[in-house]
């Protein structure tokens, strides 16, 4: 039965999630790089929006949500959206057109590879980026999405909970980002030359749009204009606020002053961590999850990364990978059936089994993403080359990859 209220909310949520990639993520990352690379960085987010929009229609949706093949991947029976029409598909969303569910999921498929770009910012060759992203979306995102959300997917079958994509989106992209940072190596001069963010206001507009769009990401994942959407909406805002405050207070204590970039990073970490839990936990649990992720992500970004010296340039792993894993596990701790009868009880509600299930989901998704990403990068390294030439890197990617520059001296 189609419901016009549900349809309206999911339509809006679809647009909100689109906004997260472009310009949300684009500006968030674009402000963090040096001025010679801002357009190239924005271009990566923009390009992924265009490219995956087409990939998803042709094969992506079918591979992710199409008829199950051995609990691992969807078949190509829905190639080009064959048979995906206005009638609702009760497996996924019983009150909105199947096509709308497809469009909503498309925006998730778009943003996920976009998140990875933070790891190889300022040095990736654009042509290789295009090929890598297309292959990654098809070989990593689509299968993992099927495992967790597709009808018949094996993680769905064992009862792993992922409300809005903690594992599907953030763990898969975050852990792949770490592989990218390690395989590509550091930016030229990393650790020796200063590489401060070139425009924090841009970055903060991006962070604000991410927070705003995340209401569509999480509350939209209720797939209806209902109580669950309201509950997820509140959990989302609460965790973001708690994580941002936590991050800023840690900075205040550790370096003497709270920073706005720290606050924004904390907010994004909170949003990441609440993503898998948003539809299963109470507002009070959201506060605790936000505080936990604030501490853990701060440590991963400001302590662990510096100690090991890898150049996860914009902290795609430190925020999305680490925050996503923490969120998925926290779901196993804090989930309550009182919040969502379709969910499950977590450890603190007397069901330790859920925590094990959540851990299984995180570990297998992470291991699979690491393996495929590594192979992809090695093949591309040998065939196309991953990095721009040294001199191109020094001159900047805006001019060398796109023949444009963001800021002029005169006029």
């Amino acid at each position, binding site marked *: 039965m189609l419901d016009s209220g549900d349809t309206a909310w999911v339509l809006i949520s679809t647009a909100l999630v689109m906004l997260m990639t472009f310009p949300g993520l684009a500006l968030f990352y674009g402000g963090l790089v040096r001025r010679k690379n801002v357009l190239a960085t924005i271009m990566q987010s923009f390009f992924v929006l265009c490219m995956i929009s087409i990939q998803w229609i042709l094969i992506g949706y079918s591979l992710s949500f199409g008829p199950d093949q051995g609990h691992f991947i969807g078949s190509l029976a829905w190639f080009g959206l064959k048979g995906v029409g206005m009638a609702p598909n009760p497996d996924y969303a019983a009150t909105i057109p199947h096509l709308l569910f497809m469009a909503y999921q498309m925006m998730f498929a778009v943003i996920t590879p976009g998140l990875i770009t933070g790891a190889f910012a300022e040095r990736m060759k654009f042509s290789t980026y295009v090929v890598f992203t297309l292959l990654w979306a098809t070989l990593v995102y689509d299968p993992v999405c099927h495992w967790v959300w597709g009808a018949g997917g094996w993680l769905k079958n064992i009862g792993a909970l992922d409300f809005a994509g903690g594992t599907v989106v953030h763990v898969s992209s975050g852990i792949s980002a770490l592989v990218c940072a390690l395989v590509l190596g550091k930016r030229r*001069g990393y650790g020796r*030359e200063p590489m401060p963010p070139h425009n924090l206001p841009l970055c903060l507009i991006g962070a604000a749009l991410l927070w705003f769009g995340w209401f569509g990401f999480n509350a939209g994942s209720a797939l209806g204009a209902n109580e669950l959407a309201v509950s997820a909406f509140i959990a989302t805002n609460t965790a973001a606020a708690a994580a941002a405050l936590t991050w800023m207070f840690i900075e205040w204590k550790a370096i003497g002053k709270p920073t706005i970039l720290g606050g924004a990073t904390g907010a994004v970490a909170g949003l990441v961590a609440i993503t898998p839990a948003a539809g299963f936990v109470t507002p009070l649990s959201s506060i605790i999850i936000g505080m936990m992720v604030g501490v853990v992500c701060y440590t991963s970004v400001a302590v662990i990364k510096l100690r090991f010296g890898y150049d996860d340039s914009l902290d795609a792993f430190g925020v999305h990978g680490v925050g996503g894993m923490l969120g998925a596990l926290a779901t196993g701790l804090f989930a309550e059936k009182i919040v969502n009868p379709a969910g499950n009880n977590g450890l603190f509600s007397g069901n330790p089994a859920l925590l094990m299930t959540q851990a299984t989901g995180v570990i297998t998704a992470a291991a699979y993403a690491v393996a495929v990403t590594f192979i992809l990068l090695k093949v591309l390294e040998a065939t196309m080359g991953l990095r721009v030439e040294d*001199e191109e890197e*020094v*001159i*900047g990617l805006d*001019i060398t990859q796109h*023949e*444009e*520059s963001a800021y002029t*001296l*005169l006029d």
Partner: protein
Amino acid sequence: MKLIIAIIQPHKLEDVLQELDKSEIYLKTVSNVLGCGRQKGRTEVYRGKKETGNLLKKVRLEIAVNEKFVDSAILAITKAAKTGRIGDGKIFVLDLTECVRIRTEERGSAAIG
């Protein structure tokens, strides 16, 4: 006392600064400038329309030094900024008649270093 003005490629700035540090020349002023030399313009494309600018982005270094540092400064800048291609830039050396450190009101050679 001499004033050294060097116009270099922006992407060579970090290398030049490092090289100057090695020669113990620490005090300098750096600015973004536009300039035109033998390299002529470069073309950028906006919505399919070619924009050829005559003026190129360069970086200008100003370094005031006592006589004995002049050669090592020139050497450091040349070593780091040279690619051998058109557009590497130029170094100008000017006589400097006076120098005052505002904080202490010292003048001349004592105020430079």
